[in-house]
């Protein structure tokens, strides 16, 4: 342990303090995030980042360092998955895919916005993110389409199965509710 003359020094995360799960999840995705050279091409490409606090480069940095605060912040949810950064990264890193991996990990830990949570609950209940209400059913009828489209909504058994598995979210946590 080194000593510091500052009262609350910010120390770099050391072995044991790093969130290895983040690093492992990205590795499993075939991703070497350490190869990121922090050039910022991703941030400059990012349409969402012009309006929100999302700085893709910083997300990549924190993930590479195993800094779990990246999962708790709302930044990763601001990505529109336009794949501009993915397309342009000179180190050929699958940047957007990395964000999706981080979102999965965050959801698994319960870091998910209440509105997103609602969407998942509706999905579990109806098989659709936008439920097929009476108005939509009417429009479908006018267009000569079957009342219920041939999606998950049409297969209640499968929907129930998924509601018990895939659409199960970890209990609410963090400051995201």
């Amino acid at each position, binding site marked *: 342990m080194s000593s510091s003359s500052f009262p609350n020094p910010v120390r770099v995360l050391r072995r044991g303090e790093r969130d290895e799960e983040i690093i492992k999840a990205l590795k499993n995705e075939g991703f070497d995030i350490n190869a990121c*050279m*922090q*050039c*910022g*091409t*991703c*941030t*400059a*490409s*990012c349409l969402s*980042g*012009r309006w929100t606090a999302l*700085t893709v*480069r*910083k997300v990549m940095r924190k993930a590479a360092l195993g800094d779990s605060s990246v999962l708790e912040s709302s930044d990763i949810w601001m990505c529109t998955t336009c794949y*501009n*950064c993915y397309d*342009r*990264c*000179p*180190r*050929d890193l699958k940047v957007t895919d990395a964000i999706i991996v981080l979102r999965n990990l965050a959801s698994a830990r319960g870091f998910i916005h209440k509105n997103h949570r609602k969407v998942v609950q509706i999905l579990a209940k109806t098989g659709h993110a936008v439920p097929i209400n009476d108005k939509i059913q009417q429009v479908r009828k006018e267009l000569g389409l079957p009342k219920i489209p041939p999606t998950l909504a049409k297969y209640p058994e499968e929907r129930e199965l998924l509601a018990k598995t895939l659409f199960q979210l970890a209990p609410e946590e963090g400051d995201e509710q």
Partner: protein
Amino acid sequence: MFVCHCGENIAGKLDVEEVAEFAAGLPNVEFSTDNLFMCSKQGVELLKEAVRRHKLNRTVVASCSVEQHWPTFARAVEEMGLNPHMHEQVNIREWVSWVTNDWDNATEKAKSAVAAGVKMAALKEPIETQKLDVVKKVMVIGAGVAGLRAAMDLAELGIPVVLVEKEPSIGGHMTMLNKTFPTDECPMCTLSPLLNGVANHPDIEILTLSEVSKVEGSVGNFVVEVTTKPRYVHDNCTSCGRCSEVCPVEFPNEWDMGFGMRKAIYKPYPQAIPSTFTRDKKHCIECGLCEIVCPVQAVDFSMKKEKREFNVGAIVVATGYEQYDPVEITAYHYDHPNIITQLELERMLAPTTLTKGKILRPSDGKVPESVVIIQCVGSRNDQVGNAYCTGVCCMYALKNAGIIKEHLPNTDVYICYIDIRAPGLYYEEYYKKAQEKGIIFIRGRPSNIEPDPYEEKLTVFVEDTFTGEPVEIEADMVILSAGMIAPKGFGKLGGKLGLLRAKEGFAKEYHIKMGPMRSSREGVLLAGTIQGPRDITKTVAHAGAAASAAAQILVKGFLEKRLDTAIVDKDLCIKCLACSTVCNPGAIDVDVDGYAFVNDTACKSCGTCAGACPTGAIQIRNFRDAQLKEEVIGLLEYNRLVGAAQ
């Protein structure tokens, strides 16, 4: 038997003492020991002393590769009065310790290799060396600054040089530059003494408009065929330029990267060497005006392509580089007139071009108020397959940003970069000077440039990674620091020369540290950027090293060739000549009685013939079937022994 620790290289991965003890028990082994560094003076003395004391007639050292230290120990046994080939080298470093972390298995593998080596050693035959005459002449291919330097250095050592250049004039890329970092000197001023020196040297023959079309032979004695395209103007041209004045065809000059014009009969630039004009057949409309006005009747449309053969002892390849073509990175819109490369800027800055050396926006000739320079275009980019850093563009960007500031003090000049690479003496200082000139440095790689559809304006999107903000820069001009890549046609020449290439396309060096100027082929040397991107300072040093390596082969007047070559047993030869058809260097002839006969000079000891021979009549000395069989038996016997014990 001597087992080397190679410090921790071997001893850190396997039990060296156990291997030495094991060897002591093998048949024919009189003496066995281990040593910290066999290649040290003490190690070599230990070996010599053992030969003397135990009257050894063969030695085996288990250490590194044949390439690395066989010669060291072979010399030692030769000094003790044995034929150098009585020494056998067993590689337990590259083949064993460097490729594993498994202590027990590594020790076992080392033992089996030693067992095989001892078997082989017992059967080794003495081999003589032969002195071969070499041709004291060098061909230098490519006449950029690297080729010129190498040609001059060789000629000054009294070695005649044939300098082959594919363009109409010599000098390469350096003649296209406006200034050179880190001194901002005029490159033509620094280069022209060398250019003129080469052009006027009695021992240098220059062939322009020429390319190598065939290569035969081997180190010390190559036969190279050179094909020269017709210039359509004879050497008696006085360079008066009347032909060019009357020529009605005008179009962009390649040498000026389109920033200047030339005629169909032309000289690329005023100081071009040779000064003889060239008629460009592709663009010529054959009006014949030039023929009529030429006061010395030098113009001759009937000139034909010529082929000539040269006999040389060594070849220096100095075919340089090409600028990366940024058109591939679509987000940068290189097809836009106001987005140019650094090499194009270098030409724009020349007084002989269309802008007369002024920096003007190409689309409308306006003085730019904002110029953005983008680094690492086509370098450090896995997407385009160039992972490497060119290592020169940061420096020339600093140079050209400074020059823009000098020309246009009221213009904003930005450099968007990932890292500024300016290592070494005077280079970081140059960076600091550029900062002091008021250039705005933005650490971030632009994602895209957006041309305004209605105005000439460009917008550059980049993250200022120091503030963490995505920013937009409005620019009148954007200059792309396009990296240096291997010349596109190099594959063909490399194939003729039989050179290995790195995956990036450059010629592969023999050893990155100990032989950066040697190629994968003996007698073929590499000079300058054909081995990898570098600036002029390093190009000149590299070319000097290549010249010296070429001279090394030739100054003695002879080569010593080890005759561990192929040999034919006439009793077994059935005269089918299968060997001769597979022999790549063409080393197999037929003797008067119709038997295969090996030309030792040309034979590369590759053993392909031995594989093709149906009767086993052709064999490589010291790699005969019988010898290899014994080596394999050694290996198998050991493994059976261990297998039985387990």
